[in-house]
């Protein structure tokens, strides 16, 4: 059973395509992050789900009910806006109680429920505070409480934490995730911050230029990126262009790699995360080793970043300080690319082919 | 907006009048003889106050140059402001022995107010032979008989109708009271410029003498209250009524005879009728402030203006009714008919507006508003 199904949902503004047909199944209780650079269509997609934008094509279902044409105010989804959109003429409590007021809940019940919700977001006793007297974090919580006031089927958040400073943002990410888990509510968050997505999401949907590139768990998106865009956008990666020979070998600049499970012969892109690259402080050859020269070392305390020049290309490796090779920049080194850490990607956008 | 009397009353007809004025010659006033040679000296000059706008332009163009040519007296024309501000200025200046203008064109109520302050220098009719022609009701006199002013220009307010709505011209002001004319009238909005009290007195109470007493005035107010249902528009803006009259929106009312004549000449379906009770004859007078040191020149000026030929010129060029009997002028029937009528006029009771202005105004406003 799928809670929310997007079936080819598209949005065009004249000749500009904001979202190509987006197809996605989101099961109940999932925490989903729509992740991508600005202008990738993630907010438009969220607004179509909320009913604030009319899709140019495709359909939207919730629990097998077609809600494509349903107006926003009948969908019963809670939404937190990037600007938070708190009503300036109302107090914190009145903001939270607004959806109850609209539905004709009695004044006493409104107050009671607003107080409960404010307790839930850890703002006890703030009901009578005017919105203008609240701090950024407090406003954030009021906006969340308001969106959840009616226990919605779907909880939508558009860049909800972007206005907060870094420290508060991290704390709120964890808090938001905990709240979602406690309530078990299906949640969709739009963000351009991949750390935020990795922290909170059960399902990360990576978007670029109006298309969904990959929808998978954070670990999967990180470990098995679907394409070069995803690999590059999520964390840091080394991308090497190579020529597959068909016999399980791949020639890359600086040498040849043996990837046993690789099939076919074509030009491909190899992606390997810096932390998977092993740097040896000698010039010894070996399987899947490429000779190079250490060009730069950055000591980050918890880790060491090494930049190695291999046949005119830079390969970045991140090592634990205790694994740091005892060579100075300028010395010859070899880098080892373990086959099980290598992901082969098509040169053009497309789906990944697992190498090992 | 309009003054109580004639300050800007020509608003509606200015452009047409200006066009007409430019078309004719200047022959009429050319024959001026018999003025004392002593006054032909170059340094003689006179400041003359004329209502700003249409009147001043017309006088500057058609009258003053002829006067200077005939008498050698240069005229410096002064534009008088609207309202009674000019009277106040003259009074205050006179206290300081100053004369912003030697001769001024004054409304009748202003004449009376000036007389009460003894502002006007007494005029000597003996020095102004031509003033013998001036109609008696246009000569302003102090209670003791001294002459304070001489009629300068006069005009008529008549009963006007749209010829399409009224194929037959009404004969009497009584038409205003005819129940058949319900909602069809346009009348002037102020007691002091509509002169409807006089019309009521002349039509229903045998003449404006009925207004001598407060009881008589109240009779007239009561009578006027009866025609309220007939009134569509109590107007202050002449152009508004003129447009409504032409279109037939408001097919009957009171309006200026000469301006209506211009509309007829334009081919508009309107007519002006002198009712049998007479048209309302309003006027302005020449008066000299007692602070003026040029009383002699002022006499020459007023005498010149009272000549039949100059009065005819004014009728032709400025559109005013002559202040002298028609027979003395060379005006043709058409020329005379355009500005006046042989029917005895209703002369406004200016004395009443001077002494009881506030009471009349309040009664009037309550009457038409209530």
């Amino acid at each position: 059973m799928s809670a929310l199904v997007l079936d080819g949902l598209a949005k065009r503004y004249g000749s500009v395509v904001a979202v190509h047909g987006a197809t996605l199944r989101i099961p109940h209780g999932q925490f989903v992050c729509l992740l991508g650079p600005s202008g990738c269509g993630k907010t438009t997609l969220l607004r179509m789900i909320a009913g604030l934008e009319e899709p140019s094509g495709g359909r939207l279902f919730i629990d097998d009910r077609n809600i494509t044409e349903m107006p926003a105010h009948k969908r019963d989804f809670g939404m937190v806006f990037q600007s938070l959109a708190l009503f300036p003429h109302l107090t914190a409590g009145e903001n939270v109680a607004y959806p109850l007021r609209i539905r004709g809940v009695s004044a006493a019940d409104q107050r009671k429920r607003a107080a409960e919700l404010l307790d839930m977001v850890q703002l006890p006793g703030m009901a009578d505070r005017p919105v203008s007297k609240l701090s950024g974090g407090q406003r954030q919580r009021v906006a969340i409480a308001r969106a959840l006031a009616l226990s919605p089927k779907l909880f939508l958040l558009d860049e909800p934490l972007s206005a907060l400073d870094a420290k508060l943002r991290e704390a709120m990410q964890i808090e938001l995730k905990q709240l979602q888990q406690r309530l078990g509510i299906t949640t969709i968050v739009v963000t351009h911050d991949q750390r935020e997505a990795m922290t909170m999401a059960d399902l990360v949907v990576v978007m670029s230029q109006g298309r969904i590139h990959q929808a998978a768990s954070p670990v999967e998106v990180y470990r098995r990126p679907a394409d070069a865009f995803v690999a590059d956008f999520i964390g840091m990666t080394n991308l090497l262009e190579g020529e597959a020979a068909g016999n399980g070998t791949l020639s890359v600049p600086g040498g040849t790699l043996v990837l046993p499970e690789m099939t076919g012969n074509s030009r491909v892109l190899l992606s390997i995360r810096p932390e998977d690259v092993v740097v040896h402080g000698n010039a010894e050859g070996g399987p899947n080793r490429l000779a190079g020269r250490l060009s730069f070392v950055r000591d980050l305390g918890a880790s060491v970043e090494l930049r190695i020049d291999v046949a005119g290309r830079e390969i970045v490796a991140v090592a634990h300080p205790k694994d740091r090779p005892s060579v100075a920049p300028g010395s010859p080194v070899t880098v080892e690319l373990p086959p099980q850490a290598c992901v082969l990607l098509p040169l053009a956008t497309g789906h990944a082919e697992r190498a090992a | 907006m309009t003054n109580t009397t004639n300050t800007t009353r020509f608003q509606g007809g200015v452009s047409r009048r200006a066009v007409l004025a430019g078309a004719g010659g200047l022959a009429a006033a050319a024959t001026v003889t018999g003025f004392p040679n002593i006054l032909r000296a170059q340094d003689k000059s006179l400041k003359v106050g004329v209502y700003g706008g249409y009147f001043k332009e017309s006088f500057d163009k058609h009258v003053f140059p002829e006067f200077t040519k005939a008498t050698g007296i240069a005229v410096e024309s002064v534009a008088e402001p609207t309202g009674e501000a000019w009277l106040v200025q003259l009074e205050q200046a006179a206290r300081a022995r100053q004369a912003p203008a030697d001769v001024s064109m004054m409304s009748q109520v202003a004449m009376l107010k000036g007389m009460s302050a003894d502002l006007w220098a007494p005029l000597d009719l003996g020095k102004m032979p031509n003033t013998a022609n001036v109609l008696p009701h246009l000569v302003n006199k102090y209670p003791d008989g001294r002459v304070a002013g001489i009629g300068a220009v006069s005009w008529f307010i008549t009963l006007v109708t749209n010829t399409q709505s009224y194929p037959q011209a009404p004969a009497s002001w009584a038409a205003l009271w005819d129940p058949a004319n319900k909602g069809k009238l346009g009348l002037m909005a102020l007691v002091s410029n509509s002169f409807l009290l006089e019309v009521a007195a002349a039509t229903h109470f045998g003449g404006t003498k009925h207004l001598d007493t407060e009881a008589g005035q109240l009779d007239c107010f009561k009578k006027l209250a009866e025609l309220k249902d007939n009134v569509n528009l109590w107007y202050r803006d002449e152009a508004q009524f003129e447009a409504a009259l032409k279109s037939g929106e408001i097919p009957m009312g009171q309006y200026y005879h000469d301006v209506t004549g211009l509309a007829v000449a334009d081919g508009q379906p309107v007519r002006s009728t002198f009712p049998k009770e007479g048209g309302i004859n309003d006027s302005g007078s020449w008066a000299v402030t007692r602070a003026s040191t040029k009383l002699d020149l002022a006499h020459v000026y007023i005498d010149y203006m009272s000549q039949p030929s100059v009065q005819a010129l004014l009728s032709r060029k400025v559109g005013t009714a002559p202040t002298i009997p028609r027979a003395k002028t060379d005006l043709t029937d058409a020329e005379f008919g355009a500005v006046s009528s042989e029917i005895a006029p209703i002369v406004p009771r200016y004395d009443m507006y001077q002494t009881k202005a506030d009471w009349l105004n309040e009664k009037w406003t309550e009457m038409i508003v209530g």
Partner: protein
Amino acid sequence: MIRRPPRTLAEHAPILFPALMLIVFFVIPFGLMIAVSFFRRVQGGFYEPDFVLANYERFLSAFFGNVLSFSLMLAGLVAVVAVAIAFPFTYRLVRLPHPAQVRWLVFLLSVLSLSEVIIGFAWSTLLSRTAGITNLLVAVGLMEAPQSLSPGFGALLAGLVYQAFPYTVLVLYPALARFDFSLMEAARTLGSSPARAFFTVLVPALRNTIVGTVIMAFVFALGSYLLPQLLGRPQHWTLSVLITDQAIYQSNMPFAAAMAVFLVLVSLALVGLALILGRREGSQ
């Protein structure tokens, strides 16, 4: 920047000029008017400096009381109707593409340039029997015969609202243009229909702007003295018309000044009342 309050003459200089202008062009004339309102009217003359209350006494009658209450009622109605039309209009306007907004604003500014006289004439023609809109209704078969709708209360109201409308839009425009429309979307996701969101979010959030605009339109309509003459019947003449009558036609400056002072005081009192009520509600 100087953060502390200005102390020396030089530091006060920037506000001296506007203060001077305010004194020369507002305080002094208004003071003169107050002074004249106590002068003695000389009937058949002008007025003399004095200190009499007769001008105010004359005003305190049922007749002028009725005129005053009609004027206030009319101005209030004009203000409310103008804002009731202008507010939704401006709400739509600020959401149009920018070039279309500019075209509308230019159009409204050009309406502003029309004089009261032209507006009065246009409306009296539009509502006339001979050339007015009722002829159109007759042509379509909705009416039996063309009818004159002017002068009358409806015509006067239409003219005054028409005149106040562009000002009202221009005053509302900046506030609505700055308005965060995600508030409306938030209201919709919280269960408000667009109409409900308009009344539960937009209107209350801009309440101060709306009250301010109503006050502006009220004061504006209160000062109108030409349209009531052109489009109204005598019973629709406002106090401003009577003030004009007294000042210009009756040369009764003291009485005109007394009425004007009274009108200013009553309007100030009403505006103050509106502001106090607004603040009290706002602080709740």
